[in-house]
């Protein structure tokens, strides 16, 4: 695990003989440590302050326009040491690279997602254009959120590559590639294969996989319907703007009703205009839900890693069992399993004692190696399960907290919208009264 610059390490890693009580204790310690301030975010303020358009040549030497984001860092307060104010520009693809690096390097961590590359699940007023200033702004917020998530993660915040991403402009990409993380990445094919063939995955991971699939389905649907509702609400409010126009024109030909109509018209205009702010606020809510929609990918990635390690363990264990079987057959001279060697020996005669002895030696060696391998894989798998499950619990708590807050803020938004509506229509009522 990469923990070069961090002075503290999470106690859970490396210790495989924990009892469940100790494990629980460690989880608590981890959480407490967050409070105490292992998080980088406690020391350093990170913000994605601005976005700018740049032009340049891409990999196929064609002109392209892209957006870069300004990352600013500064110490939290005057007493914090080791942090100097800094700023540099990064583009979205660099964020992607950072994230891929983290995914591979810390496969047991549920790594925060990036904001959408392209605007999807939007309602019609919002453009799906990546260059649209509103989209760029929301993406800026999303990227800042991503950096905060990483910087407050007990494990990830200690990563050197991450630190350099925030602070050093030059050669960061080369450094990332030099870690050789790409070689460590498991091929998708391997992972899918393992998912199909694994025999005894930890039940909790299977459950988690189902949950993340469910959450993805449900959130996608929710966000789609919400976008449609927003669309329709927009329509209702905006049509009222026509009242404003017609009342105003009508008031010109009326004597007694003129004043009342005219002012009522203004309120109708105000009503129509108010929907823009309402829906912009709601978009933040939608973004919060979207983050957790995208989190489901990270959850599935951790499950896949577990299936892979479990599968490899099973394969190694199977291989060991096979070898043991072979040894037994060799020693007792019985052939219980079909083997080409067995057949040929039957056909061409038995082996000599020396030959058998040589074979046995080889097998003994292989058995020894196999047992080592199983032990290793077991350790690996156990470690993975433990560290992953700590992070999954952390993620669950974070998710419950965040979404609870999001739902409350949604209610607050609805209340605000209702209050505005009451005000506008009460005012309009006054005007109609004067008619």
């Amino acid at each position: 695990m990469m923990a070069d610059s961090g002075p503290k390490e999470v106690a859970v890693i490396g210790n495989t003989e924990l009892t469940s009580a100790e494990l629980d204790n460690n989880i608590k310690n981890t959480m407490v440590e967050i409070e105490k301030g292992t998080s980088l975010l406690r020391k350093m303020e990170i913000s994605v302050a601005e976005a700018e358009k740049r032009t340049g040549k891409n990999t196929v030497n064609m002109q392209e326009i892209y957006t870069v984001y300004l990352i600013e860092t500064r110490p939290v307060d005057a007493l914090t040491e080791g942090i100097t104010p800094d700023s540099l520009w990064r583009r979205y693809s660099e964020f992607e690279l950072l994230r891929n690096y983290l995914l591979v390097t810390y496969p047991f961590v549920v790594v925060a997602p990036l904001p959408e590359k392209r605007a999807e699940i939007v309602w019609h007023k919002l453009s799906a254009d990546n260059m649209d200033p509103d989209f760029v702004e929301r993406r800026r917020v999303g990227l800042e959120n991503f950096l905060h998530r990483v910087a407050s993660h007990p494990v990830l915040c200690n990563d050197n590559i991450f630190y350099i991403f925030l602070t050093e402009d030059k050669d960061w990409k080369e450094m990332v590639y030099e870690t050789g993380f790409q070689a460590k990445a498991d091929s998708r094919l391997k992972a899918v294969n393992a998912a199909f063939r694994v025999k005894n995955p930890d039940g909790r991971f299977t459950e988690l996989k189902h949950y993340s699939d469910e959450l993805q389905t449900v959130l996608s649907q929710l966000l789609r319907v919400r976008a449609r509702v927003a669309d329709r609400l927009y329509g209702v409010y905006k049509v009222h703007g026509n009242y404003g126009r017609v009342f105003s024109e009508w008031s010109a030909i009326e004597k007694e009703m003129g004043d009342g109509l005219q002012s009522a018209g203004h309120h109708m205009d105000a009503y129509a205009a108010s929907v823009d702010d309402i829906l912009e606020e709601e978009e933040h809510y939608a973004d919060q839900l979207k983050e957790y929609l995208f989190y489901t990918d990270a959850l599935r990635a951790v499950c896949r890693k577990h299936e892979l390690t479990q599968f490899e363990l099973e394969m190694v264990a199977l291989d060991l069992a096979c070898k043991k079987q072979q040894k037994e057959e060799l020693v007792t001279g019985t052939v219980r399993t079909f083997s080409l060697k067995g057949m040929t020996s039957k056909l061409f005669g038995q082996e000599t004692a020396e030959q058998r002895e040589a074979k046995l030696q080889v097998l003994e060696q292989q058995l020894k190696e196999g047992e080592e391998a199983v032990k290793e894989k077991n350790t690996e798998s156990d470690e993975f399960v433990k560290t992953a499950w700590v992070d999954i619990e952390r993620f669950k708590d974070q998710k419950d907290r965040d979404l609870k807050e999001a739902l409350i803020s949604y209610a607050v938004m609805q209340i605000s919208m209702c209050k505005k509506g009451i005000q506008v229509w009460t005012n309009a009522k006054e005007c109609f009264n004067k008619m």
Partner: protein
Amino acid sequence: MSRTIDAVVSPTQTNTIPADISGQMLDLDEDDDLEVFSKDSTLADGNMFNASMPTSPGSMVNQCKFEEDEESDSKDIFITVDNPESHVTAIETFITYRVLTKTTRSEFDNSEYEVRRRYQDFLWLKGKLEDTHSTLIVHPLPEKFVVKGMVERFNGDFIETRRKALHKFLNRVADHPILSCSEDFKVFLSAQAWELTTYKKQGPGFLSRMGETVRAVANSVRGVKNRPEEFTAIQEYVEDFSNKIGSLDKVTQRIVKEQKEYLEELKEYGPTYTLWSGSEEELAEQLKGVAGCIERCCKETEEQVGHLSDTLVPVLHEYVLCAETLKAVLRRRDNIQAEFEAKNEALATKKVDRDAESSDLGFVWGSLLGKNPEEARHQRQERLDGEIEELKEEIDKLEDRVEWANNALKGDWGRWQRSMRGDLKSAFLSTAEKNVDYYEKCLAVWETFLLSQRTEPSEETDRDNTP
């Protein structure tokens, strides 16, 4: 058929007799009323409600008052339209409505009437009222059928909408000081079905009505030459008003449409939270809470849309039709004036003719017939004089007609404007009130939810302590 004044003008009311209908009322006490009344009754002999006498509104105007200030106290007729029923005959299927009348007016023999009428009967009544009082503003009837939207004549909503509009129509007629005195109106309210059919067959025949229509068309083609300024002003207003009310009608219908579509989506939105709650533990209660809130807001939205459709839409639609009525009334007034102007021109031509020296042709013709030229001229002059006298009489009548038409319209115009203001103001007011109510109810829903969330922080601290 005599009409006693106390049915309409009771002793407790101020007796206002419009000497000049355009708005100036004189206060006279009862005796003077009767005197004026009796003078008129000698002028208009026999049935004052004879539809073929175009000047009959004049006599009625003297009996009824235009000012509505005591309308609520003086309401002496109550009409309801309800209970639609379907009738199937060999030829057709149609709907009849029950028309229930309760009245203390003396021209009615009973105090209560219950009859059944179909839409055609209402159309007939409106036509008669417009024929008799061509420059009074009659409240519009609902249309025969709605082209867009519901084509189905027997659709429940359509019938109910129509019933309400018919109810309003009859009540507006009943409220109108002149129209409610109409004999046609009385017959409509009181006659049994077969009586009505018989009554309908009376009145000017088909051919004379044709003649009138032809004349009207001819006059409208001819156009009016000297329209008084105030009527031009009214016409301009009506044009503008027609545009505005048409726009409002469209905007409101569009709002209803958008609101309904919003409601449809909202109905699908709540369930997504319920679905989600099935996958969660800690969040389940909260998610179900949100789903519940959205569901309740759906109900409120449905109510709000219903109110809009029931209250604002019909009124705006009525006034779209009113605008058309107004245009027709102005046209008819113009035609009356045009007819008068035409006759005046004819008179002028005849006078010129008479005063001119005998034309050569006339002289020649006369001499061919062996007439003495002097005699011929004399005869011709006599003939023309006679025609001129006839024309003058006709013109006098037409002049009266024009004056009555103008005064009727002017009086009714003020009344219509007041009605319009009242109707539209109350419709918009009601809509605004309902909208405030809608938002207040939704606010309560979300605030209740928020309150339930805020009382949970005690749970959270417990959570930290348990492993």
